[in-house]
């Protein structure tokens, strides 16, 4: 066994789970497309061509054109970039907040714990989507606002997870040993406890990205998410809804992209969860 054998062991078990591998492939596929859209399409996603409105898929436009004659494939590719980065950034914000709150609540316990966890309960009381709608109505829809608001309404699960892990980790001998060596609270929290919570956080993050993408698509579909002309899977779908009787491609492809991405993240997340589960070791 060598250095990073734990990681390697996890990857090995992950690679034996066909669903997880499929999920990872889908995620990777969309990430590559989002990073390098010109590999697939050289069209400008915002170039309007009124002579080619709502054209069905053809050689020149593999996924057809929308109601303004823009190339759907190019818009999908650039939309992937938006949707995926909203997913990543929003989930990063959520994890950052959840991590700190979970660590503090779990480590200090007592009143700090009660206070923070009641705050989590309060946050969980809100129907998240409507909370986001209300806040966006106030601060206005922009990509950054959407990332931010999805992040600050989605950290509660992570906080609870980290708190539970911290509660048990802080009683472990190695934490006492670290303290006996003179480690202060910050060092104990971030150097000794935090890395031990990363496995469950990774699972939550993967599933969380899927959730964030879904919320962003929903918001954009309703018209208060990413604003046109910036493409996102959600607002392409909106255009599709208006023309669904005569332009099926405008609804089908973005819908399929959202569906596959979310499915891919979920499969991957559940695969990681199974792979890091110590009870399944040796499989």
């Amino acid at each position, binding site marked *: 066994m060598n250095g990073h054998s734990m990681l390697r062991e996890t990857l090995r078990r992950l690679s034996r789970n066909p669903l997880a591998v499929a999920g990872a492939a889908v995620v990777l596929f969309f990430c590559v497309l989002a990073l390098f859209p010109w590999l697939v399409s050289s069209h400008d996603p915002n170039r309007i061509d009124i002579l080619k409105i709502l054209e069905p898929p053809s050689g020149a436009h593999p996924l057809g054109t929308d109601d303004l004659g823009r190339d759907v494939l190019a818009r999908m590719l650039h939309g992937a970039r938006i949707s995926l980065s909203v997913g990543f950034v929003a989930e990063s914000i959520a994890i950052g907040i959840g991590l700190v709150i979970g660590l503090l609540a779990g480590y200090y316990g007592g009143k700090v714990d009660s206070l923070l966890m009641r705050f989590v309960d309060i946050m969980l009381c809100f129907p998240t989507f409507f909370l986001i709608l209300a806040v966006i109505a106030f601060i206005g829809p922009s990509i950054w606002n959407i990332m931010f608001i999805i992040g600050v309404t989605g950290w509660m699960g992570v906080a609870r997870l980290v708190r539970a892990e911290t509660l048990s980790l802080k009683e472990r001998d*190695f934490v*006492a040993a*670290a*303290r006996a*060596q*003179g*480690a*202060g609270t910050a060092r104990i929290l971030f*150097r*000794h406890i935090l890395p031990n919570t990363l496995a469950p956080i990774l699972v939550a993050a993967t599933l969380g990205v899927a959730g964030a993408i879904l919320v962003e698509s929903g918001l954009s579909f309703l018209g208060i998410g990413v604003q046109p002309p910036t493409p996102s899977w959600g607002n392409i779908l909106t255009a599709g809804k208006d023309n669904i009787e005569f332009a099926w491609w405008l609804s089908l492809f973005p819908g399929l992209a959202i569906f596959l991405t979310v499915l891919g993240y979920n499969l991957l997340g559940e695969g990681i969860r199974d792979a890091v589960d110590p009870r399944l070791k040796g499989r």
Partner: protein
Amino acid sequence: MPETPGTPKTSGAEGPGALLSVRSLKVGFDTEKGPVRALFGVSFSVAPGETVGLVGESGCGKTVTALAVLRLLQTPPARIEGGEIFFRGEDLLPLPEKRMCDVRGKEISMIFQEPMTSLNPVLTVGEQVAEVFTAHGACGKREAADRAVEWLRKVRMPDPERRAREYPHQMSGGMRQRAMIATALALSPSLVIADEPTTALDVTIQAQIMELLQEMREQEKMAVLLITHDLGVVHDFADRTAIMYLGRIVEIAPTRKLFADPVHPYTQGLLASLPGRNRGEKRLPSIPGTVPDLSAVPPGCPFAPRCPFRQGAIRRYQSGTSAQDDLAICDRTDPSPSEYGPGHLAACHHQRSARGEGAR
């Protein structure tokens, strides 16, 4: 022992210039069943470079004492109810937490019982040894890594460069304990508290680890507070030995004196139950009864219910051999220590009157 009133830096039976001096330390815990006392006024000292053994059964307060010295007891539920812990003439109890962090690892460090769980599973062993340097700002990250490898070599970790990059789960118990020792000694502290450092190891490894500790102690000129329930280990390694029972030190003496002339009936019982001491006898003698629960400590001498002296006195009285219960005091008052030779203290009513000595 000379003791000038008004200078609390050194104290009576412990000799002047003590490195660590614990004085009537009382610790209690809040439990669901109400408050429970764990330490009933523990006093001892450790001189520079000295090894003091702290021996007792499980639950007698050895580890609580060690954790209290490092102020690592979780409060609540633990409560330090009295006493002082002087280290280099400074009381550690009122120190702010930040200063205490400087003391831990640098001045006083600790080796834990379980090498299997005392290392962080997600950090490499090298990183964990290096932690001590960076936590105390002793040097930069790169130098810390080099010094960690150096220390792993010093504690005779096989192939230290490679092992430093490995994770704890890839190592045997003995190797992990070596890594623990390396972290504990890395900043050359003047006192190391070793809490049953060999209990979790194989017998052959135990000897190696104890030898290593001994060697390191001489090399680094540090004092060791050796906590164990193994009298053999204490006999071989400790200069002085303290015997604990139910949150008290019932006897403390230079190790040789303690083994040659134990005063307290509990010490006598412990020594008698060592194999090899009573050759020819078929069964090893044992101390009758069990340690009472800490929440129900008898009011007088804590050892009275199991004490052969006390039980003998009761029998004599009940059978009419003795006109009065001459040891009734055992059930009423907790004996305070008296002296039985230089540096030899024991807390026993019977011995105080029987031996006459030290009835001060």
